């Protein structure tokens, strides 16, 4: 693994989140009826941070939950190592709400697809929107982001690594080249 480029540092990442928070508030005309659901693992922390940004803007709390999509994956049988099943924690009613799904990287779209299937089991939101920190292209399904922090053209030989204070001890987004 070789670091190829650094896309975001701490300050830039915060600015991106602040912008996405503004866009979410603008598009939903406030925070009435809004909720955020982060996809495990890093999406959960990004959702919490977005909720913090929205509180700074609107002065109101937004319900925030965590979704584990392992049980909805379409590649469990593939020999890509065993994903751990972690907890889903959505302790509010999602029926009739505008729900923003939050993830770190949008790539093939399969994670978002699994998340949509999972959310449907929790209820029927009025709308589901997708916010991602990085959109790196190479979609395999008809899925797009409503809010993207950075659009980064990548090759399939590269991976985008999002590191967050909560999980990795520092905030940064880098592109690394697979060997």
């Amino acid at each position, binding site marked *: 693994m070789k670091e190829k480029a650094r896309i975001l540092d701490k300050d830039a990442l915060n600015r991106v989140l602040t912008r996405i928070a503004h866009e979410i508030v603008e598009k939903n005309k406030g925070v009435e009826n809004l909720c955020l659901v982060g996809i495990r693992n890093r999406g959960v922390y990004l959702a919490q941070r977005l909720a913090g940004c929205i509180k700074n803007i609107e002065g109101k709390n937004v319900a925030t939950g965590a979704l584990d999509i392992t049980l909805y994956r379409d590649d469990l*049988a*593939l020999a890509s190592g065993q994903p751990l099943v972690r907890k889903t924690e959505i302790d509010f009613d999602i029926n009739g709400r505008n729900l923003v799904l939050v993830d770190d990287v949008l790539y093939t779209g399969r994670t978002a697809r699994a998340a949509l299937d999972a959310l449907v*089991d929790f209820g029927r939101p009025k709308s589901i929107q997708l916010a991602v920190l990085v959109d790196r292209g190479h979609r395999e399904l008809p899925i797009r982001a409503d809010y993207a922090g950075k659009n980064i053209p990548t090759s399939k030989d590269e991976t985008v690594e999002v590191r967050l204070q909560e999980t990795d001890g520092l905030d940064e987004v880098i592109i690394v080249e697979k060997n």
Partner: protein
Amino acid sequence: MGWTRKDLLGLEELSREELELILSTAESFKEVSTREIKKVPALRGKTVVNLFYEPSTRTRVSFEVAAKRLSADVINIATETSSVKKGETLIDTGRNIEALKADIIVVRHNCSGAAVILSRHVGLSVVNAGDGWHEHPTQALLDIFTLQEKLGRLEGLKVSIVGDIAHSRVARSNIWGLIKLGARVTVCAPKMLIPPGIEEMQVSVTDDIDLALKDADAVNVLRMQFERDGETAFPRQLEYFKEFGITQERLRKAKKDIIVMHPGPINRGIEMSSAVADGANSVILEQVTNGIAVRMAVLFLVAQANEQIKNHEDLN
């Protein structure tokens, strides 16, 4: 660390890490049963066969519910009404189930070692739902899961197991699991129901119930099987209750928050009084609820591991 075994045969062979993986996976699965739609697609298209050579309602139903909440298809075979009656061997039955392209066999058998033998002769996953006096791993896992949930830890916990230790697969699996996870185990029973050599499993032994309850964080009360005794059963039941039965009076001398467990079905007035079974210390019904989560975790882990084993074989 991942789960790499295609089967769950017992807790004796598992490492501490493997036990902890099952427990943490079960914790995640518990949430599924609280949803409005209590189902996830994780085992969609998989077939689970419950093959029960012994009567069982709660374990079979628990496995069936667990499999269905994972979207698997479930087939129940009770051997009284099957070709086992016509003399088919366990291995032949297993191979036939495999030929049906099932994915997991959950087996309950009156012979110790039945699950191990079956697992050696079939490529599908085998989950031991109790074999003779040997092991009942998912029961012990749900007991341990409930303890951890209630007390927040396992390391250093003092757990007493009371009842027919000699003939109990539940006791054996609990001992293996609890010791590996750092708990301290005491077994308590009339001397004739303590198997010789039990001390080698690193447990303390007593035939004094008050001693077993003193300082214990939890007591796991096993079912007494007096139905085998025929006419002499009744006086022996009374005697057992007097000497070993868990009563409010005995609990008053124990820790205030002592947890009372029972794998069910309870003989009220034999192993414990009704007041204890329904009292504040009892977690008996929570054990039933947790059994679903634990069995979901086990079915999921063995199915996933077996998929990966098969894929690996295909690649080579």
